[in-house]
C-alpha cells in the first residue's frame, strides 16, 4: 500500500467518525486534509470531498434512521429550500464581498455554538 492510500484511509476514518458523531458531512475535515496532507488543489478537494460525503452521509443516515432519529418530512422541506438556495447562493457569491459575509456568519455560528454548550 502506498502512502497516499494509507493517508486517504486515515482521513476517511476520522472524517467519517466526525460525520456520524455530529450529523454533518465531514467536508470540514476532508477538504483541509486533502489540501494540506495530500496536496490536492482546493478545487479538486471540494469535488473529491463531496464524493466522499455521499458515502459517509448515507451510512450515518441509515444508522440514525434505523433508530428512528430522522424526521423525513422536515428533511424533505429543508431539501426543497436548499435546492433553490444553492442556486441563489452562487448568484450572491459573484456579487458580494466574501469576507464580511464569512465573518458575520462565523459570529452567528459561534453564538449558536455557545448557546448549545450551556
Amino acid at each position, binding site marked *: 500500500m502506498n502512502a497516499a492510500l494509507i493517508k486517504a484511509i486515515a482521513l476517511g476514518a476520522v472524517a467519517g467518525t466526525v460525520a456520524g458523531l455530529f450529523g454533518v458531512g465531514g467536508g470540514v475535515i476532508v477538504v483541509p486534509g486533502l489540501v494540506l496532507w495530500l496536496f490536492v488543489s482546493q478545487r479538486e478537494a471540494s469535488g473529491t470531498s463531496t464524493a466522499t460525503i455521499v458515502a459517509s452521509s448515507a451510512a*450515518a443516515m441509515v444508522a440514525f434512521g434505523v433508530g428512528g432519529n430522522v424526521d423525513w418530512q422536515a428533511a424533505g422541506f429543508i431539501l426543497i429550500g436548499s435546492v433553490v438556495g444553492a*442556486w441563489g447562493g452562487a448568484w450572491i457569491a459573484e456579487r458580494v464581498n466574501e469576507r464580511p459575509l464569512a465573518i458575520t456568519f462565523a459570529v452567528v455560528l459561534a453564538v449558536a455554538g455557545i448557546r448549545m454548550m450551556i
Partner: protein
Amino acid sequence: MLEIIALIALGLFAGAIAASLGLGGGIIFVPALVVLFGFDQHIAQGTSLAVIFPTAIVATVAHARMGNVRWRLAIPIGIAGIFGAVLGAQIALRLDADLLRRMFGVFLTLLAVRMAWRAWRMNSQPETEPEPS
C-alpha cells in the same frame, strides 16, 4: 403550516450560505434545528444527514462533470468514511442528548473561530488594503 414555511426558509438560507461560502449544510442545519426549532439533538443530526445525502449526490455529479473529483482518493476515503460514520453514529446514539448537544456546541464554536480567523486573514494580503500591523 408555519413550520413547513420555516423549514423551507431554513433550507433556502443554508443552501445559499453553503453555495456562497463553500460550507457544508450540516453545520447550519443541526444548530438551526436545535436552537430555532427545538429538535432533539439526535433527530436534528439524523435529519441533517437526510438532507446532506441527496445534496451531496447532486453536487458530486456536477463536480465530476467538471473533472473535479479524484476518484482514486475519493473511493478509499469514502469506504473508510462509511466505517467511521457507522462508528460515529453508534457513539452518538449511545450518548445522552444533552451531552451530545454540548459536544456539538464545542465543535461548532471551534469551527466558527477557525472560519473567522481565515476570513480575517483573507483580505489582509497587500493587494486589497494595507492592514495596520
